[in-house]
């Protein structure tokens, strides 16, 4: 069924057993993003040192897609430079807007390729992007306050 392309096993796993959930006590930037059309929320703590992201923790409420996606992002983007993270984020954003025409490169996106099916469900794309847009916002804030260091 078409629905199975949306709810991949990997996604439901991340939803039931989220990674990095629970906010760190300290952070370089904390952001809170909401999806105003549905009420999904995520708070993200990001810490970086020497231009490398060394911690992403989060808390939130929302659907399986939004929560699994932030779990995947928090795992994937850690230990990456800002430039690397930006490149991954761009690739993920492109995948989400691909209307089901792209599979996603697992070497770059890892578990996030499991979200490829979301691109066929226009109403859910913003669910999948919620955590990633929060990360983007946090990264900009860190770079502005520390110059990326």
């Amino acid at each position: 069924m078409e629905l199975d392309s949306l709810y991949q096993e990997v996604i439901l796993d991340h939803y039931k057993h989220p990674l990095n959930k629970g906010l760190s006590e300290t952070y370089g930037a904390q952001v809170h993003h909401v999806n105003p059309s549905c009420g999904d929320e995520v708070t993200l703590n990001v810490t970086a040192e020497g231009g490398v992201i060394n911690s992403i923790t989060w808390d939130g409420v929302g659907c399986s897609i939004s929560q699994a996606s932030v779990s995947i992002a928090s795992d994937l983007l850690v230990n990456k430079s800002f430039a690397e993270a930006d490149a991954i984020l761009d690739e993920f954003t492109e995948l989400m807007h691909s209307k089901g025409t792209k599979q996603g490169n697992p070497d770059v996106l890892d578990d996030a390729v499991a979200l490829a099916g979301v691109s066929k469900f226009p109403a859910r794309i913003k669910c999948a992007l919620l955590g990633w847009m929060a990360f983007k916002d946090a990264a900009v804030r860190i770079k502005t306050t520390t110059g990326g260091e």
Partner: protein
Amino acid sequence: MAFSVANVRQDFPIFERTIRDGKKLVYLDSGATSQKPLSVIEAESNFYKFHNAAVHRGAHQLAEEATDAYEGARLKVAKFLGADEEQIVFTKGATESLNLIAYAMGNAEPGTRFALTSKDKIVVTEMEHHANLIPWQQLAARTGAQLSWFEVTPDGRLDLSNINAVITENTKVVALTHQSNVLGTIIPLKAIVARAHAVGAVVVLDACQSAPHMPIDVKELGVDFLVFSGHKALGSTGVGVLWSSELDDLPPFLYGGSMIETVTMTAATWAPAPRKFEAGVPNMAQAVGLGAAIDYLTAHGMSNVHDHEMALTKYLIEKLLQVPDLKIVGPTDLDSRGGTVSFTVGEIHPHDLGQYVDSQGVAVRTGHHCAWPLTRKLGVPATTRASIYLYNDESDCDALFDAILGAQKYFA
């Protein structure tokens, strides 16, 4: 039940299509927008095909016909509400109707009836749709008036225990929904109107969820303003209604063509209501579409529509309560409630539930339903909502029931 749902469904072209690979369309989202009978679609289309011209202007035949059609729709709306024609204003929607009232009050000359100051109070409720909350928040912010509200009890009713403390001598406006778009609760209007009028306040009633589903008589309700949207009442999108017995005292909101009496380079005077509130060329074809919708509803009888929906609501609630882990958010008794039922199902997030039931052809609404303060108060970030209309029957409720059980298996 004085009409056959099977016959009704034949009047709605959309039920001829299928959903998600050939499944029957089970449309349980009429609280968001209703489907349209062919007569409405044709009325709108025929206006463009045969009668299109700017109303209230021009001396030609088309302008006459367009004006007749548009004003004919106004008369239908007036009769539908038990009101006079000159008390009916066409707007772009209920949201605009509510904004019109709030902005117009904000335009009132200091010292006049509707002018608000920091000494005045505006009263709303915790169960308002954003469209009947934010315009009042903003009016309060602009005028310095105080915004206060009735709270909602855990079982989804309005808490009137402190009515005299909420509606005080300083209250100028009480704006509230007739029926909650989330809970289905019908509010105890009589007591509120009595208290509001005792202190000289006007009552603004959001009837978006009630007027399409039950007989409405504005004189019986006793309110001062009532709004509803066309598209939730089988009508076209882009048309809403504002009814008021107090239009003469209310200053205009939008200025421009049609709404004037005389204009010089420095000043203008206003046409009498309702024209005073209809600046510019209105959404004529849509008003005509709404007129056809009201014909359709009236032909079936609003009492019959209401009886049908109440019987179906009883069936829907009983059916839903059989689902393990399902909690209804709002009243489960049929007393003072309508056919809008919100619920949660265990740990399944409403979006995921909505997505699954959609895969089975069932259309429901998920989220906070534009009533974020309410869902927050009730401790549920989001709910799933099923809302019925005259074209739904027990098989639709059964399909929802089966789909929810399917979702529980899928997300187990």
